[in-house]
């Protein structure tokens, strides 16, 4: 949290125009399509090799769209975004490491290893 950020408060206060309901509906339609695509590729055998990256990418897009538009992170204070992103990044980092210690554990961990 750079102090400059926190101390330009008045501008933050100025409400940016929220999206219109129309826009919300559009976003929901996109989300619905992505969900359908997710389920679809799950069943398409040909895409088996790409399944996981595709799924992750789709989920990520959905996640980000909901956060940015429905939760207004796109229009709201950077500070909020930072709280949230810190939580996500931290969780991602530490739990990746945790899981790696399980999945990459050598056959025969040595004397102190």
């Amino acid at each position, binding site marked *: 949290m750079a102090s400059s950020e926190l101390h330009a408060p008045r501008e933050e206060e100025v409400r940016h125009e929220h999206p219109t309901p129309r826009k919300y509906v559009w976003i929901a339609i996109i989300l619905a399509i992505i969900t359908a695509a997710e389920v679809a590729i799950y069943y398409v055998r040909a895409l088996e090799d790409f399944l996981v990256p595709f799924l992750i990418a789709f989920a990520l897009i959905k996640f980000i769209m909901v956060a940015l538009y429905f939760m207004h992170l796109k229009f709201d204070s950077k500070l909020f975004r930072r709280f949230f992103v810190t939580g996500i990044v931290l969780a991602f980092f530490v739990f990746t490491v945790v899981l790696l210690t399980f999945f990459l554990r*050598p056959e*025969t*961990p*040595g*004397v*102190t*290893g």
Partner: protein
Amino acid sequence: MELLKRLSASGRRLLLGVVVTAFAVVASACDTNVGPQDYLSPEGPVARKADGLWDLTFGIAVAIFVIVEALLVYTIIRFRRRPGREAAQFHGNTKLEVILTLIPTLILAGLAVPTVKAIADLSDKPEGALNVTVTAKQFWWQYEYPDAGVVTANEMHVPTGQPVYLTLEGADVIHSFWIPKLTGKQDVVPGRKNNMYFVADRPGTYWGQCTEFCGLSHANMRLRVIAQEPADFEQWLAEQQEPAAGTVSGAAAQGQEIFMGTCVNCHAIGGTEARGTTGPDLTHFASRETFAGSMFRNTPDNLKRWIDNPPGVKPGAQMPDYGLSAQEIDAVVAFLQTLK
């Protein structure tokens, strides 16, 4: 209070420094006070490797300690309030701050290299090792020599000069295997296999104990490693491969009968129908110097007390009190003593 008051201000501050340094000195001198689990006097290459790192780290730590504490003491003496002196008003000194950040960084980077190297060295599986499978249970140790088909408890016999490669398996809760003079700890985790190795330079009995809290008798979950010349070790191994001595007579026979009635459920004796696995294998029980997690010397009196009421003499022991009469206990003990 009077005494403190009479001490001059600087004297008091000096005292502070003295107390603090005294501990550093005592701590460094403590090598001389060697106990059976003192790991600053290693007896094998694995423990020695750790010890070498310790000497380096401890040296650096003491140096940093002395320098920084001396600086602190100097500061508080030099800048104590005196009439007519005003505090200098400055807010920092970037150059100095950067230097004082870099120095520790460099020292630590220097320390990191041998540390990582040692970790890597020690994680290699040694050549030509003797394999032993260690199973930790509340509150005793089982050792299996898979290549020889020998199972024993609490006292591990190993040859000198040859690496001993342990596979550690947990049965109930987490324990930790440790023989300070030979090697550091390795946890024994249920559901996992861990490995470690050590080498004993010289024959002797090395003490160790469980170091992961595992319940009531964690304190009593001790162990011994008995290092022998390779020839002696081979002989021991050969003896262990023999079944228990054949027929017994007298009180021992009565003891055997009781044993085969009750104790079989948990204990095994090679060459008999006793095949229980809950408790230690007793095939050559009488050849052990200690029992029950090396808590007791293996004497008839101790044995009697043990069988009379195991949880009474060893809190939480997983062997129940069978309410045997004194006479029956004598008989059982007589029997156990035949298990050479």
